[in-house]
């Protein structure tokens, strides 16, 4: 992750050309996603809004992206912590506006970063059903309950939104289910011990 430099802050001053505070707000939001600094489409529309060249717009987007990610990474939650990042010569009202917008967006950005982090495939959905086996080739009459559990997992390492949803159905006998619940109960107990500390 790039560190914030003076060039970034001089790019940020381009925001003084923004038509409104909402335009600044929108720009901050648009430059956050990871693909934003490379997007020419965004650079061009920004260039149009601010009446600057595409190159300058691209530098502005990169600067906003770096700043927002820096704030998120270090979890800067107080205005003072952010204000101190800016050079002394930076335009004061713009500085305050950017700080305010960054703080506003931090919670949803944080949640988004948390949900996008790498992990094993996530459990998306889970269903179960209890069946009664009444006959088989080895026993012509029986009454054995069995449990079927269907789980849908999403592999989040694929592109967002197109995560491969794979599905697995598992059959459990009564003993297996009891053992599984035993294990799950132990997890719950350990969790409450940790939570109690």
């Amino acid at each position: 992750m790039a560190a914030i430099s003076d060039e970034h802050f001089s790019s940020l001053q381009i925001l003084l050309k923004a038509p409104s505070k909402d335009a600044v707000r929108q720009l901050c939001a648009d430059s956050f996603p990871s693909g934003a600094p490379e997007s020419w489409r965004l650079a061009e529309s920004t260039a149009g809004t601010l009446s600057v060249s595409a190159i300058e717009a691209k530098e502005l987007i990169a600067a906003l992206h770096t700043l927002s990610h820096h704030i998120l990474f270090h979890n800067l939650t107080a205005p003072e912590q952010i204000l101190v990042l800016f050079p002394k010569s930076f335009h004061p009202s713009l500085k305050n506006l950017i700080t305010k917008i960054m703080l506003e967006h931090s919670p949803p950005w944080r949640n988004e970063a948390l949900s996008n982090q790498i992990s094993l495939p996530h459990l998306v959905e889970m269903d179960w059903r209890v069946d009664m086996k009444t006959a088989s080739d080895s026993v012509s009459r029986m009454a054995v309950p069995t449990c079927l559990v269907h789980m849908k997992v999403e592999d989040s390492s694929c592109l967002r939104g197109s995560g491969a949803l794979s599905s697995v159905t598992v059959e459990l006998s009564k003993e297996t289910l009891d053992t599984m619940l035993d294990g799950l109960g132990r997890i719950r107990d350990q969790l409450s011990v940790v939570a109690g500390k």
Partner: protein
Amino acid sequence: MLQLQFTKDTLPDSVINDFQNLNKFNEQQFTSLTEILFNFLLEPKEADRFLHQLSEFAGENGMSAGPLRNLMKSLLLLPHGSLKKNLTEDQVKEDLLTLGVSEDKADHFSQQWSLHYPVLSRLAVGQTLMVNQLVDMEWKFGVTVGTSELQKVGNTFLQLKLVIRKGNSTENVYMELTLPQFYNFLHEMERAKASMDCFS
């Protein structure tokens, strides 16, 4: 045409003869043979041990192993069929009498049958088809300390590894659950168990 409960097929004469030959054994010999038979039924994988015990018996009692093995093969038809049809002790005894086995031998065999029946039926149920049977479950849970986007995080996660039997091989399925998902999963599994308990 014999009316038997353990099978609907017509038994070949050789099989019927084998059953009637059981009467030639004395009480002690019949008891040993029954024991060898049920040992095999209780542990069907121990085929070698079964054959070995039969050879020993043949040697001790001055008979040839070959005919004895054939006799036992015929005799095995009765418990296999009875297990399939869930026959009671009395029904097994009736079939033995129909086949011409003497009263006291039929009595002894059917008593042994009812003695071992719970274990034998459990074994048969265990052989019943199971699709994607869950064989093992491993878990670990931990805390995410940091990521490339967030220097300090404190999220708990739970990782599950399920080992599933697919045909002859096993497949591992890995997944991660958040805490709320885990509690939901636990809750659903408890409901499934309660539902199963209603039936047993």
